[in-house]
Structures are given as C-alpha cells and as structure tokens.
C-alpha cells in the first residue's frame, strides 16, 4: 500500500505508475481524491497568482486594442492603431534604444567589474568579509532612496560630485550630470552600477565557491598561468551563474522605473525615459489608458521574446537541473 502522495517524486510526466489496481471505480475515485488533495494545496497560490498577476496581463492585452480613458469598460475599438502609433512614437523607440544601451553597458562594464571584484574577494585577502558586506549593502536600499541621494550628489555645481572634482583639479570633468541630455544616461548607469554590482558579485562569489579547489590546483600543477586558470577552468565552471546574472540584469534594464522616476522622471526632454516611465506617463498622467496598455504589452513582448530566446539558446542546460536543492548555498 503506497501513501496517497508519493514521497520524493521527481518532476516528470504526470502520475507515476501505481501498484495493483483494485476495482476500476475505486481506483478512479482514489486518483481523483489524490488530484484534489494536490490541487487543494495549490489553490490559494493559484487564486492569488491568477487574479493579481495573470488577469492584469491579459487585461492589458485586451485594453491595448481600444482607445480608452480608463473609466468604465473600454468600448472604442481601434484595432491595432495603438501599436502602429507605438512604432512611430519617437519616445517609445527611444525607450527601446536606451534599454539596449543600458543592457550593453551592463554586460560590457558592470558585470565584468562585478566578476573582477568577486575573483578578487574570493582570495584570502585581509578585510574581504568587510568589503563583501560593503559592496553588497546598496542592494538593500530602496531604488527610490538611492535615486534621491544621487540626485543630490550629482546636483549641478552644488552637489558633492562637482565639488570633489573641482577640489582635485578635475572640475572640467564635472558637469550637469542628470540635467544634461548627453550625460544623463551615463550618470544613471553609474548609479545603477553603484547599487547593483554588489548583487552580481555575490552571485559570482557563490558560484566561485562551488568550484572545487582541486580543479584549479590541478591546472596549476599542469603549469597553467593564473589567466589560463581563470579563462579555461574558472570561467567555464562559472557559466551557469553568469547566464543567470546576465538574465537578471537584462530583465532589470527592461523594467527600470523607480530610479528614473525619482531622479529625472524621464527628463531632460525624454532623454532618460524608459518604457515603464512612458507607460506611467500615458496611463496615469494623461489618461490614455489604451495606449499605455499597448506600451505594457510591448514591454511584455520584449521580455517574452528575450526570455524565450534566452531560454532556448542559453539557459536550457541550466534549467534542466535547476531548482533542485539550495542547501549547498548556505541557506
């Protein structure tokens, strides 16, 4: 007699084979009961997730085909007009471009920097626990608070940044930071790096610590230089962690809102606007809810295309063995 629920089952095609079926009807009833028990445990999560996550996304899809001010039900069906408008909207196209810019900057600068710091702090070096804690600390601050802080630090002329630069004779490097269309994205990226590189560093550190020391030692014995050890032993073994970190970084760039909203609200003249900010402007400030829904759907589409492509081409191998255990990571 097995229990009604199977201990330690692995994921796989549904119900595992059962021993000796009793009479057919009793078996069917027992299976139904088993299914109902399993689903009973799922029910609260399903309701919460269905109503507050899936339903809104579906509704945005529906509303994006209407011209709608957001009151009553949408009735002015306009077909794909919102989407054609979207593709001709310079601000939205700029959003996409700025998103790409942040992704490229993150992958080219922020993540390699985080990796370098992780490798550095993975050695026995004095004070490494303090540095780790310090580098990660900004991650626990709210983006809104971080934004207000750096908005003041980079205040043109009177902020700390300009003062420090002029004190060390580099005043020419200072400028208007967030207030200048040509530097606003770079400044934003600087703040994002300050806030988030420690998070990626922590991921890498966890990955590095799961690499057996014997492997790098063996490479050393074989005469590999430090760079060769890093390139041919450490990096390949770190690949799963790197792939997840890249994924999280890209998703973060796609949905960026808080920081931008607090510091620049997308300005000057849309030069730091993101998709989420544009959506917010249309949906909550101008009451063009149908059009704002189309922007939401576009954001969803961008995430979806990215997630599927990434999963298809990059992540597949990792997810196969993913979500199995977490004890090794020091829960």
């Amino acid at each position, binding site marked *: 007699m097995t229990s*009604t*629920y*199977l*201990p330690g089952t692995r*994921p*796989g095609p*549904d*119900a595992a084979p059962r021993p000796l079926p009793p009479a057919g009807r009793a078996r069917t009833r027992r299976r139904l009961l088993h*299914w109902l*028990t*399993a689903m009973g*445990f*799922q029910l*609260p*999560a399903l309701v*919460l*997730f269905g109503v*507050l*996550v899936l339903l*809104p996304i579906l*509704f*945005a899809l529906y509303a994006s085909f209407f011209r709608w001010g957001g009151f009553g039900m949408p009735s002015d069906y306009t077909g794909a007009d919102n989407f054609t408008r979207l593709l001709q909207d310079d601000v939205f196209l700029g959003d996409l471009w700025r998103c790409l810019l942040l992704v490229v900057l993150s992958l080219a600068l922020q993540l390699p920097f985080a990796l370098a*710091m992780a490798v*550095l702090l993975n050695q026995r*070096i004095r004070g490494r626990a303090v*540095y780790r804690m310090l*580098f990660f600390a900004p991650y*626990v601050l*709210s983006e*809104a*608070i971080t934004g207000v*802080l750096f908005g*003041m*630090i980079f205040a043109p002329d*009177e902020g700390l940044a300009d003062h420090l630069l002029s004190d060390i004779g580099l005043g020419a490097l200072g400028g208007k930071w967030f207030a200048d269309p040509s530097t606003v994205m770079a400044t934003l990226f600087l703040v994002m790096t300050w806030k988030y590189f420690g*998070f990626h560093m*922590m*991921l890498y*550190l*966890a990955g590095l610590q799961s690499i057996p020391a014997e492997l790098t030692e063996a490479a050393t014995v074989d005469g590999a230089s430090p760079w060769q050890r890093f390139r041919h032993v450490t990096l390949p073994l770190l690949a799963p*962690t790197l792939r997840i970190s890249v994924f999280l970084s890209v*998703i973060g760039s796609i949905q960026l809102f*808080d920081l931008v*909203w607090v510091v620049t609200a997308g300005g000057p003249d849309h030069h730091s606007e993101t998709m989420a900010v544009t*959506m*917010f402007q249309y*949906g*909550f400030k101008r009451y063009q*809810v149908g059009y*704002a829904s189309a922007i*939401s759907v576009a954001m969803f589409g961008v*995430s979806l295309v990215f*997630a599927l492509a990434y999963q298809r081409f990059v992540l597949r191998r990792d997810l196969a063995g*993913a*979500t*199995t*255990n*977490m004890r090794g990571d*020091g*829960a």
Partner: protein
Amino acid sequence: MNGSRKTVRTLPLHLVLVVVGALMVVPLLYALLSGFKTTSELSRNPVGLPESWITSNYTGILGSGAFWRLVGNSTLIAVATTVLVVAVSALAAFSFARFAFRGREVLFTVFTMGLMFPFAVAALPLFLLLRSMDLLDNPLGVILPQAAFGLPMTIIILRGFFREIPGELEEAATLDGCGPFAFFWRILLPMARPALGTVSVLAVVTSWNNFFLPLLVFTDPKWWTIPVGVQQFQGQYATDTARVFAYLVLAMVPALAFYSVAERQLVGGLTAGATKG
C-alpha cells in the same frame, strides 16, 4: 613565502579594494555628515566635517509623527506580505515537491514564467483592478499584489528545499496515520525553518523597498511607505538640502540594520534563488 612579501604582492589589490570601497561609502557618509550641517553651511562647506554638529535635522524628523507613521506602514505592509506569501507558497511548494499529479509541470511552468515578467507590465491593469475592487488607499491593495508577485521565487526556493527532505520520513508519518496536511504542518514546516527564514527575509526586503506599487495605490499620505515618503519629502523640502539628507539617512537605517542582522539569509536566498531558479 613570508608575510611581508605577500603584502607587497597584494598591495595593488588592496589599493583597488580601498578605492572601490571609498566610492561605495562616500555617498552614504556624505549624506550622514550633511545631515549634521545647516543648509547654509552645506553650501559653504560641502565636503568637510560639520563646523558644529547640529542635531536638529535628525531630532526634528524623529520627533515628528509623520516619519514614524511611514516606518509603521512599511513594517505593517512588509510583515503582512511576508506572512501571506510564505504561507501560500509553502502550501503550493509542498504540493509541487511531494505529490505527483496531472498538470503539475504545466502549473509549475506557469509560476516560473512569473519570474521573467517585470512588475511594470502589470502595473496599469493591476491599478485598474484594484480600483474596481475598491482597494486603493487600502494596505491590502499593496499587500495582496506584492504577495502574488513574490510567489514564483518563494515557491521555487521552498520546493527545492522540500524535495530534499527524505521520503522515508513521510512514509513513517503516513504509517503513523499522518495525513498530508498533518505531515506538512507538523513535520515538514518545522524542518524547513531555515528555508522559511530565507524566503521571509527576501520578502521583507522586497516589500520594504517597493516604490512603484505604493506610489500607485496610496494617494492618501496616511498610508505612505518609506520610499514614497522620501520622494515626497524631497519634493516638499527641496531647498532645505541638509534636512533632506538627514531624512535620507534615517530612511536608510532600518534597511541597513535589517541587512546587518539577516545578511546570511538574504545573500543565501538571493544566490539560491538565482543560481537554482
């Protein structure tokens, strides 16, 4: 290799760490020091130590009920979100980890897909939904969606943990007449305490720092949370820079204090969620 040679060899590395460390600390330290100045001193003497340490910025904020109101709201919302998301996720994760049932993989995929989609996508329709449910300016309007969006990560982490618990234990419990819920409640949950701690810490931090949702839901200052309050305060006292700095510092203290207490769970949870999710 003796110690001093090693020190010489690692000197550049230390230099790098000190510089990066300084870049991390200076903004925070600057805010802290600026809070002890008056705004006129701050524009005269932006970089140095305060000429005389003025505490009125800090005490003024701490003495006002408004600040404590924000702290109370943020705490209430964070605790309620955490209890809800952990309870609901634990039930679902238990079912995913210990039952074989038709549709399990599809369902699990639906939840994991939730990880991939930014909250911003759902923000607008969610707002409309909350409005129609009359949940605006109601803490539930923030608590429920936060819990819903926290489900994927929490379920994934807990499912992984629940699957580690040996099957024999469950068989023994079943033989002793333990039903599924009794096993879940009396045996599994107490054993999973470390994992529950980890996901709770993650949920608290996420809720505490949430800005977008409270911004949408709360127009009434009565319910503002810390991030919304900070933004409003800056708008209101934009010219009194020193005061805003003091406010920022005080707003950061709870999060940093929580981090220093729960660092292990937080980092463990994030790395587990990310490397296993």
